[in-house]
C-alpha cells in the first residue's frame, strides 16, 4: 500500500499555504485598520479602542454564542428576544433582592429560556430557523406581558451599582467589553479543545453520522442553546446596565448582525466548520467599518453603500483568493 501516501506529499508546503488561506479574512481586517490609521488621526488612540471594544461587546457576545449554534447546525434567532426577557427579569429581581441577585437571576433566566428553546427545537424536530423565529416572537410577547409594555428600572439608589458593566476596568476597557472578550476566549477553548466542542463539530458536520457514533445529538444541541441563552443574558445585562433600565424592544434585529458577523468571519452557515476567532474578527470588521466612517467625516449618505461593498469585498476575497478548495 505504498500508493496511499501520494496524497500526503509535501506536507510542509501544504501546511503553510493552508495557514495563509485560513487567515485570509484577518488580512481584510488589517487592511481596513491600516487605511483608517493612515487617514485619520484618531483611529489609533486608546480612547478609540476602548470605544471599539465597547461597541463590539453586545454583538460580540451574541456572535460567540451564534458560532456555537451555527457550528452545531442550528440558528438561534431567539437570542435577542431572550436578551430582552432576561434583562427585564434581572431588573425586576434587582428591585426586590438587590443588584447581585439581579445579575445572577438574569443569567439563570437566560440559560433557562435558552434550554427551553433548545428543547422545543430538538423535540419538535422543526427547522431551527423557523422554530427559533417563532420562539423569539413568543419571548418578545412575554416581555410585553411581564412589563405591561413599560420600561423597568432598578431603584434609584441601586442605579450606580447596577451600572457596573459600563465602568472602566482592565486596560481601561469597560467591564462589559472585558466580559465579552473573556466569554469569547472561554467558548473558543471549549470549541477547540474539549470533547464537548468536538461533539458540536460532529453534530453540525453530519448529524446522522454523529448519532451513529453514539453521540446524543439532541443533548448537544440543547446545551448549545442553553449557552446561547446565557450569552444573551450577559448581553442583556450589559445593555440594561448601560441604559439603567430594560424594556421589551431591546436589541431587536441584532441577532442578524451577529449571524452576519459570524459568517463574515468565515464560519460556514452549513455547520460543522468554523472557529470562535472568526466570530471575533467578523464582529471587529463590522465595528471598525462603522467606526471608520464616523472618524473619516465622510458623508453618511454613502455610508450604507460603502459598508455593503466592503462586507462583500471582505467575504468574496476570502472565498476567492484564500479558500478556493472549499468552493
Amino acid at each position, binding site marked *: 500500500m505504498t500508493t496511499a501516501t501520494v496524497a500526503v506529499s509535501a506536507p510542509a508546503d501544504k501546511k503553510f499555504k493552508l495557514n495563509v488561506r485560513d487567515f485570509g479574512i484577518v488580512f481584510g481586517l488589517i487592511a481596513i485598520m491600516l487605511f483608517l490609521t493612515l487617514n485619520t488621526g484618531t483611529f489609533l488612540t486608546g480612547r478609540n479602542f476602548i470605544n471599539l471594544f465597547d461597541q463590539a461587546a453586545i454583538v460580540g457576545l451574541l456572535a460567540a454564542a451564534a458560532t456555537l449554534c451555527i457550528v452545531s447546525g442550528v440558528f438561534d434567532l431567539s437570542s435577542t428576544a431572550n436578551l430582552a426577557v432576561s434583562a427585564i427579569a434581572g431588573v425586576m429581581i434587582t428591585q426586590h433582592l438587590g443588584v447581585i441577585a439581579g445579575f445572577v437571576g438574569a443569567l439563570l433566566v437566560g440559560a433557562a429560556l435558552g434550554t427551553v428553546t433548545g428543547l422545543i427545537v430538538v423535540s419538535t424536530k422543526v427547522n431551527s430557523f423557523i422554530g427559533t423565529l417563532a420562539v423569539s416572537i413568543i419571548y418578545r410577547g412575554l416581555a410585553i406581558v411581564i412589563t405591561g409594555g413599560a420600561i423597568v428600572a432598578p431603584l434609584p439608589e441601586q442605579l450606580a451599582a447596577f451600572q457596573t458593566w459600563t465602568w472602566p476596568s482592565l486596560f481601561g476597557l469597560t467591564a462589559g467589553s472585558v466580559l465579552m472578550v473573556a466569554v469569547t476566549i472561554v467558548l473558543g477553548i471549549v470549541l477547540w479543545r474539549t*470533547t464537548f466542542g*468536538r461533539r458540536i463539530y460532529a453534530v453540525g458536520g453530519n448529524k446522522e453520522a454523529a448519532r451513529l457514533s453514539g453521540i446524543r445529538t439532541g443533548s448537544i444541541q440543547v446545551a448549545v442553546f442553553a449557552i446561547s441563552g446565557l450569552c444573551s443574558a450577559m448581553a442583556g445585562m450589559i445593555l440594561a446596565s448601560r441604559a439603567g433600565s430594560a424594556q421589551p424592544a431591546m436589541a431587536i434585529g441584532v441577532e442578524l448582525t451577529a449571524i452576519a458577523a459570524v459568517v463574515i468571519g468565515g464560519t460556514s452557515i452549513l455547520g460543522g466548520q468554523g472557529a470562535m476567532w472568526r466570530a471575533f474578527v467578523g464582529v471587529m470588521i463590522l465595528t471598525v467599518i462603522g467606526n471608520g466612517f464616523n472618524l473619516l467625516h465622510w458623508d453618511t449618505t454613502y455610508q450604507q453603500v460603502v459598508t455593503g461593498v466592503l462586507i462583500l469585498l471582505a467575504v468574496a476575497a476570502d472565498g476567492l483568493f484564500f479558500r478556493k478548495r472549499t468552493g
Partner: protein
Amino acid sequence: MAIQQLDSPERVNRSAAPEITISGIGKRYGASTVLRDITLSVAPGEIHGIMGENGAGKSTLLKILGGAIAADFGVVKLDDREVKITEPRDAIAHGISLISQELALIPGLSVLENVFLGRWANTGSLLRSRRDADHLERLLAETGFELDPRAMAGDLPIGQQQQVEILKALARGAKVLCMDEPTAVLNEAEKAQLLKVIRNLASSGTTVILVSHYLEEVLGLVDRVTILRDGQHITTEDASGHTPESLVGLMVGREVDFLIPEVPPVSPEAKTVVQVAGLSSSKVQDVSFTVRQGEILGIAGLVGSGRSETLLAMFGADRTTSGHVQINGRRLRANSIREAIKAGMALVPESRKEQGLVMSRPVDENIALSTLSGRSLGGFVRVAREKAAVSEISHSVDLRGARRGSLIADLSGGNQQKALFAKWLLNPPAVLLVDEPTRGVDIAAKARIHGMIADLAAKGTAVVVVSSELEEVIGLSHRIHVMRQGRIVAEFDRNASRDEVMTSAFLK
C-alpha cells in the same frame, strides 16, 4: 436504560462476543413491508454473510442491529437476554458496531478525530489528543492501513474513508461488527487487506456480520450465509457446501448467467470516435488515447491514480490545462459539459450520492434530468413522454422498489446505482464513460449492466470503463490502459492476465 447501565462498554470489552439471536424482526415503511419475520442466530466469533438481491432488506436488517433504525416487530437477544436497541448508542453500549453502506464520517474533522468520535480520551472534558494519537498508531499497525491521522476525512478518497470507519469500530472495542458492503468501494489490494483484517478479528473472537455482493469473497470468508429475498428469510446454511451458482439460485430463485458476456470484436473498418490528445489537468498529465466505434476501452489503476479525473476532464467537468478531446473529428470546447453532452457523451460518475443523484427528488425526475430538453415543449416538461421513457429504461436496468413519486433516497443502494445508469442511457449515447458502474449492485443486476454495456458497444457506442474490479475491466474491455500517478503507463489487449495488469499499476 437499565440494561445499558449493567453492561457498561468497559465490561463488554473484557467479555467475549455474545451469541446474537434475532427473532420475528419486521420493518415497514408506509404500506410496504421491507422485512418480514426474520429469525436467525449468529454464534460468537462467527463470520456470517448476508446475501440477497438489491432491495432484499440486507441493509435494513443491519441498521436494526446497529440501532440506526428501530424495528417495528421482533426482539434481539444477546446471550439469551433480550436487549432493547432503539438508538445507535444502545448498540454501541452492547458492543455492536455498524459500518453502514453510506459512510458516516464527519467531513470537517480529521481522521484521528473521526476514529475516536464520541469517545475521545480526555481529562475532565479537555481533549488528550496525544493519547488518542498513540492509540490510533497501534490500530494502524494492527490493521496495516496507511492513513494520515491529521488529514480531513472529507478530503480522503472513498477507500480510505472506509478504512477510517473500520478503525472507528475497532477503537470502540466492538465485539460484533456489522459491515454493509465494505468492499464495494475498495480496489483489489485494499479488498485483500480488508479481508485479512476481518479474518484476524474473527480469530480473536469478534463476531462479523457481513453484507456483500461478491460471491467468491463471501464464500472464501464466511462460516455461514443467510439469504434474504424480498424481505424474507430464505435460508441460513454453511458456506462450505455452496458454489457461486448455488448461492445465486437461492438469492434470485432461478438460474442466472452471471458471467461477463462476450463482447464482439471491433470491426477493422470501425471509425475512431473519441480522440483524446495530451489532456492535462491538476490531477492528470498528458493523457492520450483513442476509442473506436463499438470499442470498449478499460482503464485500470490504483486509488488516486487519476482514472476518475481522466473521465471528468474528458467530460469537461474538471478544468483542463492543455490538450483536447475530439468526437467524430469535431474538437470539443474545453471545460464545457454541455458541449460534451451535445456531442453524445455520457458520464456515469463514481459517486452516486455526491455526483450523480439529487437525493431530495423523485426517481423519475432524476433519471430524466440530463435529457430534459429532449422531452419538453416550449419549456414545459412533457410528463407523459417522460414517464413512458423512464419506465422503459427502468425496466431494462431492472430498477425495483420505486413507487410513484418515491424519492431516490428511499431506494436501496443498488437500485440507486441502477437509476444512475438509467439516467445516462435514457438517450443512447455515442460515447459512454462509466466509472465504477456496478458499485453495490447485486450479481444479477451486475450481469445485466455488463450486458447493457456490451450491447451498446455492439450497436456502435464507444465506451470507456473505469473500475476497481479487475475482472470487470479485463472481462469487458477490448483494450486496457493502466494509469499511475496521473499518467497512462501501460497498454494491454483483452487477453492480459490479472497479474500483468496489477504489476504495471503498482510499478514505481
